[in-house]
């Protein structure tokens, strides 16, 4: 206060306000462009379809498995149905980012680190959470860790070693954190509600990541064009392993 006059203070405040106004304007404009692009010809125009194909793959897989195997298991749907459904939804949430990252192939370090961290964390957290709800901390935690690390590294390496390392760290942390959260809520009788809340927050984060990638890469052309085979295959592998673990996998002593 001693070093600047009243006039200087007003000027500083005015400039800070201007910066925030400019920032708000830029973000809102980019967001409008992004929502418009969801119907466009770039890879962002395929994101909703990717969710649909992934979910369709999971539903068809679960229907087939139910018809041939699960319906003979007593109380299978009441016991595991909710967790299988949300595992399918979680995988469908991850797939659009995988597609978007693959389409651009290479990113700047900062963006790549964000990609590796977010996707590793969320994929590990969600699959760890739902698997630990039925199998316990060890199986849920380390399944989440392996999935988180694998997807985190795979996508994070779009910027090199930094993104890959972020993927490893975030997958490791997210998987254990998801499993721990669900395991500690087991006796709270609010596990399913917690699953819905965690899923909703993760959906917002993943949507944010889609937006961030678009904002960073909108000046760049798509580097790789591919059909939805990768989405279908990856979803199939993930839902198959998750289903096997949830229904037939080893369980902690707390589950009897």
């Amino acid at each position, binding site marked *: 206060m001693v070093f600047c006059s009243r006039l200087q203070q007003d000027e500083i405040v005015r400039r800070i306000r201007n910066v925030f106004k400019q920032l708000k304007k830029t973000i809102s404009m980019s967001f409008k462009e992004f929502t418009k692009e969801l119907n466009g010809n770039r890879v962002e125009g395929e994101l*909703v379809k990717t*969710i*649909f194909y992934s979910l*369709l793959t999971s539903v068809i897989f679960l229907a087939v498995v139910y018809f041939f195997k699960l319906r003979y298991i007593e109380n299978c749907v009441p016991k595991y149905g909710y967790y299988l*459904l949300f595992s399918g*939804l979680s995988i469908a949430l991850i797939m659009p980012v995988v597609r978007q990252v693959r389409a651009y192939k290479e990113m700047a370090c900062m963006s790549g680190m964000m990609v590796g961290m977010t996707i590793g964390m969320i994929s590990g957290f969600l699959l760890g959470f739902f698997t630990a709800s039925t199998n316990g901390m060890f199986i849920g935690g380390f399944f989440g860790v392996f999935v988180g690390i694998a997807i985190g590294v795979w996508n994070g390496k779009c910027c090199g070693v930094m993104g890959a390392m972020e993927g490893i760290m975030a997958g490791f942390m997210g998987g254990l954190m998801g499993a721990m959260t669900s395991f*500690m809520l087991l*006796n709270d009788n609010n596990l399913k509600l917690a699953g819905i809340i965690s899923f909703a927050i993760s959906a917002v984060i993943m949507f944010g990541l889609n937006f961030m990638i678009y904002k960073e890469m909108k000046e760049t052309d798509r580097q790789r064009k591919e059909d939805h085979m990768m989405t279908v295959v990856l979803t199939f592998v993930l839902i198959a392993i998750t289903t096997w673990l949830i229904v037939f996998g080893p369980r902690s*002593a*707390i589950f009897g």
Partner: protein
Amino acid sequence: MSNKITLIGIFALVALVVSFMYFGSGSTESAPITGNVVAGEMQKVVLSQTDLNYKDSIVQAGKPIAISADSSVAGCLRAPSFNFGGKKYTKYLQSTNDVLELPALEKGTYTFSCTMGMGRGKLIVE
């Protein structure tokens, strides 16, 4: 295929699965315990701790069980958690007078743990 149609498809898929889970699966939660309950013949089991696990306990089949914990049991092990075919029985046994009641069980060995899953034990039903 426009995004609106795709979104409708996504919601339809989720609605299909949810409606199947609630109306179409045809099975409901059933009582998992098949042993015969003998009224008035509650058998008492006092849990105790060895290292970081519970000592194994032996009970008779067909009689309901009252579980309590002695002073050797500490920390989260004072809240044992039993799961019989998906139905959970758990209670925090704060003092030695607190009792967790279990239904009659069939012969077999039932594993249980504390609510945190840290300490484990076996309930052997003969």
